[in-house]
């Protein structure tokens, strides 16, 4: 819980990791390139006093995670979004067993979303059924740019991917978190193309598609599909740290999101340990659209409450919000009134 000026905020960090990128876990140069890329993101966008040393960044462990999120940090609940990268890391980038252990010891604080890869075919489908049961999955994290043998990415509307999404519906997994990394195949197309999300969101209305990083670097394409689909959400991971380095650009991002997809469909996320939630939440609660940007309405306390936790809690029924912190949100309600921009777009 976070409190400021008498306002109390229920905080759900909708995107956290427990990773191991130590040298002994690197399968090849790409594992090194991947964590170095993450470290550059961290160093580039964090306030100076929040920058970790490289060794800690490669492996920080479960205790540090609990401290950063819940003790020193403001989170009431956090959701693991597993990124496996088995072609880059010997035992995987995400520490699945340790994450699950933490979830079992702290069921009121942590939710685990596992990753599957539709290129694993029938065998992977079987595994998904087993995982759904043993891990009590309510959500999955898909990284479409993951390398997999000779393949360097897939599309959500590929036939096998559709089979997995249909299986998610059968298994009661409702929340599909999608990270559209640079998908290399087909190389002729824009690697960050979001058209595949558009297609599956239309075809699988029983699923919620949470697009991580609000589609960056294709914010405009993401906003456009979110206006067309009632079951598309945006996660703020990677977008929100701009609140420190480029507050005016962040104002534009959040302004666009509020206009196109609305306050009920935006989810706070730190992407821990890329960034820690404490400073992000502090800054976001204090944040306001600059006065000269009259094209955007000011953010209200209630809108911030929804974005910081109540929307995610609406998508995950296991996350219990104390009555005194709850306000109504239309997240998870497919029949809800859409955002202004979405309405205009549909009528145009």
């Amino acid at each position: 819980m976070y409190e400021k000026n008498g306002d109390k905020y229920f905080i759900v960090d909708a995107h956290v990791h427990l990773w191991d990128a130590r040298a002994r876990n690197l399968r090849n140069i790409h594992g090194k390139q991947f964590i170095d890329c993450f470290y550059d993101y961290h160093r580039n966008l964090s306030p100076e006093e929040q920058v970790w040393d490289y060794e800690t960044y490669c492996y920080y462990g479960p205790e540090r995670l609990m401290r950063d999120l819940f003790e020193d940090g403001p989170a009431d609940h956090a959701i693991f979004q597993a990124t496996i990268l088995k072609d880059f890391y010997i035992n995987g980038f995400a520490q699945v067993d340790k994450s699950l252990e933490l979830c079992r010891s702290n069921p009121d604080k942590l939710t685990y979303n596992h990753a599957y890869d539709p290129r694993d075919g029938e065998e992977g489908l079987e595994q998904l059924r087993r995982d759904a049961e043993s891990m009590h999955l309510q959500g999955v994290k898909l990284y479409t740019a993951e390398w997999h043998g000779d393949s360097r990415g897939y599309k959500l509307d590929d036939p096998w991917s559709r089979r997995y999404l249909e299986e998610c519906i059968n298994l009661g997994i409702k929340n599909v978190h999608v990270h559209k990394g640079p998908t290399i195949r087909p190389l002729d197309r824009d690697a960050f193309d979001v058209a595949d999300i558009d297609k599956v969101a239309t075809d699988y209305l029983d699923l919620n598609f949470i697009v991580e990083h609000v589609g960056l670097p294709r914010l405009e394409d993401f906003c456009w599909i979110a206006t067309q689909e009632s079951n598309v959400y945006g996660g703020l991971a990677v977008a929100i740290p701009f609140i420190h380095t480029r507050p005016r650009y962040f104002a534009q991002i959040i302004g666009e999101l509020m206009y196109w997809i609305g306050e009920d469909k935006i989810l706070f996320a730190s992407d821990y340990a890329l960034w820690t939630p404490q400073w992000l939440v502090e800054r976001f609660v204090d944040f306001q659209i600059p006065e000269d940007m009259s094209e955007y309405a000011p953010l209200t306390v209630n809108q911030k409450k929804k974005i910081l936790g109540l929307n995610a809690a609406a998508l995950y029924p296991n996350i219990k919000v104390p009555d005194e912190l709850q306000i109504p949100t239309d997240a998870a309600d497919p029949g809800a009134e859409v955002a202004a921009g979405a309405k205009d777009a549909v009528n145009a």
Partner: protein
Amino acid sequence: MTAVADRRATPSTMVEAAIAALGTVVDPELDEPITDLNFVRSILVDDEGITVHLRLPTSFCSPNFAYLMASDAQDALQQLDDAGLVRVMLDDHHDSDKINAGLAAEAGYLGTFGVEADEGLDDLRATFVRKAHTAAMERCVSDLLARHEVTPDEIGHLTLRDLPPGPKKSALLRRRANVGLSLCPNSLVLVGDDGQPVSPDDAGMRLRFARSVRISMEGNGHFCRGLLATRYADDADCDGRSGPVITDLRTHRSAS
């Protein structure tokens, strides 16, 4: 590279020509020259030819854009008189080996990427040329709106003639040329992705979406610059915030 960079040397005309040629190469996603983005790490000119090293903000920048910029750079340098042998190399990318081998062999896109490539990168290029035009169009229209020289109801009727001269208009005209739109002063400014006029009812929404395109492209520019500077902060010769290391070892001057 064993040559020591000497920044105080007066660049030869070939060095200047190489810098100018590289300045014509644009990052399609950001609509900015690779020289302005500091993606050029070094330029070496010697009696054999020109060697250029490029580098990008992350190892995982999309390989199709990485290839486009590197091959455009190679093409631009090869068009210079007396260039000699042109070598362009992309450093520190997950596909560096593949891309550099393809460039050295002049294998083209399909030859470089093999089965991962399908037909070509023309459609990809066209998509981003179109986005660049959309962003330039929005800047011009929003500029007039901000100065109250036009009302929101009138934006669908604006013609190129109505735009005041200046960098925004020049940028729009160049991008109109890139997408194949008319430069006639009577042409409408606000057009759809297909280049067709927008109905008065849809003009507001078209401008609104164009603003998202502009914000997205500008934001990606901030992001790429920041990441490049962070990534190469420890490179004493070229820290990602400055121009390339220039080494001029050419002894002969061209007759031209």
